[in-house]
């Protein structure tokens, strides 16, 4: 007896037919849920080499093993598909009541294939699935779409994940929003939805949720709940993740004006502390979360005073300092617009900042920008660009809607050197030049440069390692951090909860046993983390990954940071090469970054690789 649903819902949008497939205990234990289970199911279902925005891409929603239980911060789900931004694995996580309701409908995962004939939404009513007409929802923003669907079904308990205009218009970094404020944000899940004519997924679940040992789980989680409301997580509640603005500023790693500097002269004006004092109205939590990191901010000044949205560090950074903007009301408005239109705030900020630098250098002029002045800090232009991007307005809107990699390739003239992305995914709000461990993680990441999948900034910023020094030992460190993050993303537990564990591996494995009734040791869970990192890599290898793509934008090497606590820092190409080699070695991969047969066998991935048709070299250190 175990407490998964043991079943997966398959829906084909083209034929409007669905079926239920069983999923066995062995697969569930090996991949747990979330990103791990989602990637495994995607690899099984997706044909190699398909167009991510074509009808053959596949969407997998995979739930947390703890969804809807008292395990704190663990009611989350993963959305996994081939990314239209990177062409590689697009694994992204969101949470809250949508995840809880998916669990109450009793699905471990939902696999969506094909393309609907007209704009539609999928309604999963416990055991049944319906493809319903969404013509009336066309052009509607994410929040209004949720309400409109609840109104149509006439049930407030229906939970909805939807796309806005950005997803409908196939902006490559469009996101998926649920519960009015949670997003599966990165790698373009909204565009995949849009390409399938799928406006939203609505779920109604009416079943109770059971766990293997509810008494012990309850006692344990009450204790965890108390810990997670103490000093270990205080920064997420006050001022919230936005507190990172000044933390990064002091370390000289607050990427400013498209990574031209690590110091922002107006940082105090856009600090988390100032936001908390003047703009934050209330903290709210995801379903089942004891931390409550969402700080809802309200703009005050016209013309932005209609904006009210939860603002986190990455969003504030990308639409603020990175674009030279220091008007807090405008930043809140920009975040509000992105959430409603269904745009990833981080990619949006990076691509706009790139356009601003092109404008500064005369590569783009007013003739190219529809007359907009893209000078640093012009918040009116940032807002105007967001409106143009989601509509793919001919010219600048359409150009930027494809992400910074494609835009810079189109524009050329050296703009690729300051297009800040890894494998097509725009960088996050930490400066790689001042954080060597983090920089390695950004270079080798399977979903592109992502701080959530490779949290190397933590040992760098926390002083566990010298953040200015490149060493071979960072290879093992980055490997361990990736496995650790992959375990969180597969269980799924929010990473903001990480410090509440004394020994994550054994404690999380114990929570898993109490919840699911399946055995799991600390070593088993470690292996899950490693397996998930490897299956994601396997996916990328099959989709044509080349070793040259494990690299950083030219700016990271060529332009030392000009000022602040990280002044003079840059990354040396030979240093990065050395660390990447050490990383491949720590992973047990070949010198070319491929997974040898023996490694696949050790992680029980041989069959998976075989079925997926991946080219496998025989031994580590030997090129295929």
């Amino acid at each position, binding site marked *: 007896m175990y407490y998964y649903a043991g079943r997966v819902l398959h829906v084909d949008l083209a034929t409007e037919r669905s079926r239920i497939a069983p999923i066995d205990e062995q697969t569930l234990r090996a991949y747990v849920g979330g990103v791990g289970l989602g990637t495994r199911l995607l690899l099984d279902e997706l044909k190699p080499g398909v167009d991510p925005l074509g009808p053959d891409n596949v969407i997998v929603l995979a739930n947390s093993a703890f969804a*809807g*239980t*008292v395990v*704190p911060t663990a009611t989350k789900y993963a959305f996994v598909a081939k990314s239209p931004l990177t062409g590689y694995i697009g694994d992204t996580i969101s949470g809250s*009541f949508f995840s*809880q309701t998916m669990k*109450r409908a009793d699905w471990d995962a939902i696999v969506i294939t094909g393309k609907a004939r007209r704009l539609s939404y999928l309604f999963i009513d416990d055991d049944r699935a319906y493809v319903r007409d969404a013509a009336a929802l066309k052009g509607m923003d994410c*929040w209004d779409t949720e309400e409109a669907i609840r109104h149509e079904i006439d049930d407030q*308990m229906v939970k909805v994940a939807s796309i806005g205009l950005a997803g409908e218009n196939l902006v490559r970094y469009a996101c998926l929003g649920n*519960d*009015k*404020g949670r997003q599966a944000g990165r790698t373009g899940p909204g565009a995949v939805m849009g390409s399938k004519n799928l406006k939203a997924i609505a779920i109604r679940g*009416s*079943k*109770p*949720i*059971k*766990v293997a040992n*509810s008494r012990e789980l*309850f006692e344990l989680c009450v204790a965890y*709940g108390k810990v997670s409301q103490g000093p270990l997580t205080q920064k997420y509640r006050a001022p919230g993740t936005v507190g990172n603005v000044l933390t990064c500023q002091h370390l000289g790693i607050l990427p400013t004006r498209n990574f031209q500097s690590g110091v922002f002269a107006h940082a105090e004006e856009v600090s988390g502390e100032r936001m908390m004092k003047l703009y934050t*109205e*209330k*903290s*709210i*939590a*995801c*379903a*089942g*979360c*004891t931390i*409550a990191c969402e700080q*809802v901010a*309200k703009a005050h000044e016209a013309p932005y005073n209609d904006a*009210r*949205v*939860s603002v986190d560090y990455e969003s504030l950074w990308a639409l603020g300092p990175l674009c030279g903007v220091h008007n807090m009301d405008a930043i809140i408005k920009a975040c509000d617009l992105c959430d409603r239109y269904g745009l990833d705030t981080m990619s949006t900020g990076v691509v706009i900042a790139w356009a601003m630098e092109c404008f500064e250098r005369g590569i783009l002029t007013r003739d190219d920008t529809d007359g907009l002045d893209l000078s640093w800090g012009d918040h009116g232009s940032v807002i105007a660009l967001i409106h143009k991007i989601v509509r793919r307005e001919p010219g600048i809107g359409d150009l930027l809607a494809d992400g910074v990699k494609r835009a810079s390739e189109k524009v050329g003239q050296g703009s690729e050197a300051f297009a800040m992305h890894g494998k097509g995914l725009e960088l996050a709000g930490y400066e790689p030049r001042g954080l060597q461990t983090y920089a390695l993680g950004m270079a080798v990441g399977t979903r592109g440069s992502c701080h959530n999948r490779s949290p190397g900034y933590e040992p760098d910023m926390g002083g566990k390692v010298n953040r200015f020094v490149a060493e071979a030992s960072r290879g093992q460190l980055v490997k361990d951090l990736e496995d650790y993050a992959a375990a969180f993303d597969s269980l799924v537990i929010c990473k903001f909860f990480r410090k509440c564990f004394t020994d994550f591996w054994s404690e999380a494995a114990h929570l898993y046993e109490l919840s699911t009734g399946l055995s799991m040791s600390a070593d088993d869970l470690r292996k899950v983390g490693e397996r998930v990192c490897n299956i994601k890599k396997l996916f990328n290898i099959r989709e044509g990954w080349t070793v040259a793509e494990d690299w950083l934008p030219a700016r990271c090497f060529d332009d030392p940071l000009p000022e602040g606590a990280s002044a003079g820092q840059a990354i040396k190409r030979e240093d990065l090469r050395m660390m990447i080699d050490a990383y491949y070695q720590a992973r047990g991969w070949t010198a070319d970054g491929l997974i040898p047969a023996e490694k696949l066998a050790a992680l029980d991935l041989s069959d998976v690789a075989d079925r997926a048709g991946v080219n496998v070299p025989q031994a580590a250190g030997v090129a295929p």
Partner: protein
Amino acid sequence: MTAAVPIRLSPALQQFVHCEPDLCVGCELCVYACSDVKIGQYDPTRSLIRLIRQEPNEKKPVTLTMACRACADAPCLAACPYPGSLVVDPATGIPHVVADGCTGCGWGVPAPGSGDTGGG
């Protein structure tokens, strides 16, 4: 934050769940915990605590949980149109639904505080 309508408590009952909306973050864990204790499963529709959650939109977000306060002169009892289907236990002051008599009309539910009427 003070309640708009002061509620007089049943003298028999000294404890009940009270929520401070300014401190509540809307996580729903108390709702899970209640259903876990009462029915051994997590089921928000069978919990005796209910979450009210208005996400940020045009208005400031609101998060609030409600549970029975076992009021003296319970308004739900007065609202119930089927005599005998909602009764107060004299020992505890807690209102209980009598399954045979209740038609599920819902009249008792909107009344402030709701013992079994909140539990459905």
